[in-house]
């Protein structure tokens, strides 16, 4: 047991410390106890996502309108450039609907990437002030983005129904929530990856803007990629892209009233399981890094 200081005539003070009661500080907990701690913080995750949604809309005049306004303006821009000027609409049935679904659905994933990269920097005050599993911060972000996507989706559906040539409601619309859920799961993993990478290498935040633009052109947001890519291997590789799968499945279900290809479902399903799983473990591995300056 520990005793009071033992003094020798002139030598050093020997402090006997019973280390069975002590443990090293700042070590990351085991994965199991990390998940348990995270579950204990569920109220915090909820409150944090609400607080940031509120804070984020404060400095613009139109506030929440921009949630829907930005994709509408994006869509209008792409329509003018790709639809009217470059004539990318040739051979695409209901090009306006095609474009609207592409722009609205892709920005959900793009935001997960860029938002995740900024998450740890945006939450640094709270990270430095309190001890809690840091994954709460990116998870709160995903939660907020997913919830604010709901009014955006309603707008998207209203637009494809109202703008000619009108899409028809079909039985396949019932499957649309499944795509959205798979996309949200994929985004969760993506956010966790981006959060740790960008907190370790801040320069990545600048690079990610280019990555997301490159990704957008490769996912067939404003044109059908099989029209521009003829090489079969390259085309097959591009079809493994999860964002491409989301867009194709959504268009098949909402616009063309047909069952999407099983390959698309399976590819997206695999991404939706593997990405969050590995992303979570990857983020947890860096748990000791996030509080540092």
């Amino acid at each position, binding site marked *: *047991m*520990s005793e009071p200081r033992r*003094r020798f005539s002139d*030598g*050093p*003070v*020997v*402090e*006997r*410390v*019973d*280390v*069975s*009661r*002590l*443990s*090293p*500080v*700042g*070590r990351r907990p085991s994965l199991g106890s990390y998940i348990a*701690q995270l579950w*204990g*913080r569920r*109220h*915090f995750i909820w*409150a*944090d996502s609400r*607080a940031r949604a*509120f*804070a984020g809309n*404060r400095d613009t005049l139109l506030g929440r309108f921009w949630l829907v306004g930005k994709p509408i303006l994006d869509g209008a821009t792409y329509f003018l450039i790709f639809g009217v000027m470059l004539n990318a609409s040739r051979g695409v049935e209901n090009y306006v609907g095609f474009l609207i679904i592409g722009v609205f659905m892709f920005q959900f994933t793009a935001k997960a990437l860029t938002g995740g990269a900024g998450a740890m920097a945006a939450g*640094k*005050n*709270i990270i*430095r*002030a*309190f*001890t*809690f599993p840091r994954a*709460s911060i990116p998870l709160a972000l995903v939660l907020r983005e997913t919830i604010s996507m709901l009014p955006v989706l309603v707008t998207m559906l209203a637009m494809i129904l109202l703008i000619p040539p009108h899409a028809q409601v079909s039985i396949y619309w019932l499957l649309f929530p499944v795509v959205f859920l798979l996309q949200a799961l994929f985004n969760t993993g993506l956010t966790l990856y981006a959060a740790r990478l960008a907190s370790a290498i801040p320069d990545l935040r600048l690079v990610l803007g280019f990555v997301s633009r490159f990704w957008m052109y490769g996912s067939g947001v404003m044109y059908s990629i099989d029209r521009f890519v003829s090489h079969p291997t390259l085309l097959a590789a591009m079809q493994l892209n999860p964002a491409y799968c989301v867009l194709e499945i959504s268009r098949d279900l909402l616009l063309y009233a047909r069952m999407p290809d099983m390959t698309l479902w399976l590819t997206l399903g695999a991404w939706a399981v593997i990405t969050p799983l590995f992303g979570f473990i990857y983020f947890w591995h860096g748990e*000791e890094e996030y*509080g*540092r300056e």
Partner: protein
Amino acid sequence: MSESPDDAPKKGIEVPLGEPTVSVRRLSVHYRVSSSEVERGWVSRRERLARRLGWNRIVTVRAVNDVSFVARAGESIGIVGHNGSGKSTLLRVIAGLETPTTGDVLATSTPTFLGVNAALMPELSGMENIRLGLLAMGHTPREVRKIVPDVLQLAGIGDAIHRPMKTYSSGMGARLRFAIAASDRPEILLIDEALATGDVASKERSEARMAEIRRQAGTVFLVSHAAQTIEEMCTRAIWLHQGEMILDGPAYEVARAYRWWAWNLAKGEVAKANGLLEDARAQLRATVVHPEDPTTDRHISRHAHPS
């Protein structure tokens, strides 16, 4: 340095000491940072070229150098030293926010750290920040409702609690963050200059809360460059200079020695100040932290000899 009875100075509140709560053993933190400082003497050709290209030399900064001590339940330990003496780094390592280069820090529980950062969520009101902070500490919404009045009372910032936190003065922000962190009665509380600002009433409230934490087998660390704060709030003090421990002893003695040194330095009496520093260093008896585990009844590691 004897205490005269007629002008009894204010001292930290004494509470009975208990078991060790934090063990710091041969701790060093070295940073590799770039420096544009021009080195005198011989400079290699490669280095000259590098400098011409705009790359700076990488130098090692010894922020904390071979520091050992043991903190016990009931202690309130002040860490004094000039700017850049490594006191904040030491505190951040104890908090587990930074990894030491060598040595280790053991603690009975995860320390609660109160840094010098400004507002938590600047857009939100103080009240919303309290709720969010308490939830981050792992409380349920029901517990939060119960704790909030206690936090409000301790913070004592009145109606400002409903205003956005970005409108707070630094003193108000610091008090609010202290009130949130202390509401939990953490076992180990680390405070970085947070209480230096604040009026007398709020200082007394926070000191009472710190004493309460220590009575419940807690330990409080307080970093400050103001010897006065350390003398009034602490029972023990550690004086750091350029990352090295100069003195470790009763707060009153250490703070007085530090203040006398700092005063001489400020007056430009560099030689005298250096002499005082050496005197203090000579008084320090090195601490050897000896880890033992009675459950297995064997020594965890060999004796760590002081250098």
